[in-house]
């Protein structure tokens, strides 16, 4: 192709993209399933089924990473960690879809042994075949080039990088700095190094990581939420029972809809806004197809 015709084509196609195609694509919008009910196992399953079932994501023989938030030495009812029942249901669905191995881990803030124990997740998955609940091993971190606005590179956990399917299972809760912590913030659990240092530009840094590290499925645990003193909580009076589970392939959309369940608007959450601006997903509720089950 001649240089001139290439430039023409490139120029025209970018024009075409910005004016028409973009809206066309956006119009289709992502789908978010919101399931409600007191049987938290059942609503987790129905939220995933509303998106087409786990078989859509997990193919036979796949290695799956299920990444809950179990960063704190708190018991399940305090809503600082993902509900063990939700995690167990997702793991069961993965196995049923034919997963060869399901790995469940988190980089914890409190002592890892106590977090795995108190969160109830280790116990909930105990004895399940082909399921690994292991502490992180520092040698598995790999330096990943992010080329982002805040982070040029960062260490990410090898088993998350090498997994065929990555399922992000955050809990919806209050956070002192970012207002809320949901799906995109939960990805911090696979980050190595001095994570605290990214707090000075948390939203930008999280968007940097999420732009490179792709979550295949996000399932937000909003069965009960921590409304204040997050992300750690510790007072049962800060906990509100919502009996909801949110699922989507679009992490930004999942975060946005979960935000509305919390009673906030997506544009109030800096990470969501930053991620949407970069085209990582949709945050406008009117462009998101919400399936309620």
């Amino acid at each position, binding site marked *: 192709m001649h240089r001139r015709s290439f430039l023409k084509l490139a120029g025209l196609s970018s024009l075409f993209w910005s004016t028409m195609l973009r809206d066309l694509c956006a119009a289709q919008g992502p789908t978010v399933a919101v399931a409600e009910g007191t049987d938290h196992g059942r609503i987790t399953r129905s939220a995933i089924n509303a998106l087409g079932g786990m078989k859509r994501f997990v193919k036979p023989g796949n290695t799956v990473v299920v990444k809950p938030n179990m960063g704190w030495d708190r018991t399940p009812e305090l809503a600082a960690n993902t509900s063990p029942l939700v995690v167990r249901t997702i793991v069961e669905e993965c196995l049923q879809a034919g997963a060869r191995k399901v790995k469940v881990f988190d980089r914890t803030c*409190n002592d890892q042994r*106590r977090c795995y124990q108190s969160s109830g997740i280790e116990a909930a998955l105990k004895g399940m075949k082909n399921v690994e609940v292991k502490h992180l091993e520092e040698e598995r971190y790999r330096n990943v080039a992010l080329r982002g606005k805040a982070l040029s590179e960062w260490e990410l956990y090898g088993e998350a990088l090498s997994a065929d399917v990555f399922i992000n299972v955050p809990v919806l809760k209050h956070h002192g700095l970012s207002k809320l912590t949901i799906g995109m913030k939960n990805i911090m659990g696979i980050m190595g190094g001095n994570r605290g240092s990214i707090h000075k530009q948390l939203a930008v840094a999280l968007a940097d990581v999420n732009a490179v590290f792709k979550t295949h499925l996000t399932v937000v645990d909003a069965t009960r939420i921590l409304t204040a003193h997050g992300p*750690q909580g510790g007072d049962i009076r800060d906990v509100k029972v919502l009996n909801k589970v949110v699922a989507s392939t679009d992490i930004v959309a999942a975060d946005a809809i979960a935000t509305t369940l919390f009673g906030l608007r997506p544009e109030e959450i800096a990470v969501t806004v930053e991620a949407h601006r970069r085209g990582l997903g949709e945050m406008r509720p009117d462009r998101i197809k919400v399936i309620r089950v």
Partner: protein
Amino acid sequence: MKKPTPARISQLIFLALFLVLFLMTEYRGSDRIVAAVNGFFRANPLTAVTTLLAAKGYVPLVLPGLLVLLFSLFLGRFFCGWLCPLGTVLDLVTGRIGKTVPPSWLTGRVKFWLLLPLLGAALFNLNIAGLFDPIAILLRGLTFCLHPLVGDTVRGGWRGLYGIMGEGRDLLAPGFRLVNDYLLPFREALYPLAFASLLLLVLVICLERFGERTWCRRLCPLGTLLGMAARFSPLVRTPDAPCSSCRRCAAACPSGFDRELMQKEECLACMACVATCPTGKVGFSFGLRSEEKPLMERRVLLGGLLSGFFLARLFRFRDPAARAHLLRPPGVRTEEEFLHRCVRCGECMKVCLRSALYPALAQAGVEGLYTPVLIPRLGYCEYNCTLCGQVCPTAAIPDLPPDLKKREVIGKAVFDKNHCLPYAKRVDCIVCEEHCPIPQKAIRSETVVMSGFRGEKLSVKAPYVVDELCNGCGICENVCPLEGKAGIEVFALRDRAPLPAALPGDTAVPGAEDPYR
């Protein structure tokens, strides 16, 4: 292969028990530790006597130690010959160490010059017997040096294997997990005094060069104490001298028998002599035989106790700056009471979930050597954990239920605004607030408008400490993302009154709904 004597079998069983308990002194998924190595200290008469002398009152925990002392009045030094794990270690290695004649200073009254000052110092409120306690020497050598060394080596190899095999290493993981979960320390902390701890242990072993059980006979303060009790013991060996024609029993005796007459205070009651006597003439029986010669000269007794007085009074200097960071384990209210009881055995440091406790080198002066100090930058006190109090053999760290332990004050956190990011660099951070475990948050933040360094207006979350809620656990200092020195530090306090049960600012609504009901 000789047939093992009952004493040897008992020794091996207790050594194995010691090692198993040592490995059990670690968090294994349960909030309570059922059995820990502290059992050996609770049954340790030296710990019992010095703790009672220093505390000037009855400490129920040391009752087993007093009972052992009482039994020693009847059975002699059975503890040394049948139980003591350090003695067993010495017995196991002594065959490989060539022997030579002991120097004259070792054969004299030196053991009393070691024991009596320790007792005297305890009487004058300084309990440092643990520094020379045989079980503490062994335990510290293991805790601070050998166990972390093994952990570091094995885990280093495991990491190296990842470099070679990559994820293929997972095939070997089940085997490694078994070793990792049951034999290795959870994290291999580097301890100050690691080398000194090993050195003391090695020195004790090297003393074997001057004859079997030289440490036990000629230095060990615990052995000397038990020897004093053993003088009253009616359990005696007959005949009390070896037959001149044979002397096999004298050769077999781990305690020497080099003074031609049975020395009750040095006899370990191991009964090796009974097993070796070809004629079956040697036996132990209960009978009265009074010891004629005096235990020691009066000047040794007085001099020893007096040096204890000096010991207790002259090593109290403390650097005030170091004192500001002298953080004690949770539940320790006053420094004095703590020093009366602390054995310096290292168990709290072994069990500490976050490896937050380290032996004091200079922070607490000479009198505080080897006592546990919390160093938040290395590890913090885990909010829901009560392990250190559970394993402390003398309740120097009280064993508190979690609800009470959470309210015990270790110190108070203070921001250093010259370092703390929001103040010094005008950027958001709040990692400390995020990690503060107090449900109502002892670290809070307010959004303030600051002018940036180019004069622009910035909205920054500025953190502050609520003193009434802070228990000084140190997680804030631990997680502060600044390198080296943290932007928030925990400082020691004299007044460590616990936080009130109903925390201020806790706006408890009467009849507040439990969302799970």
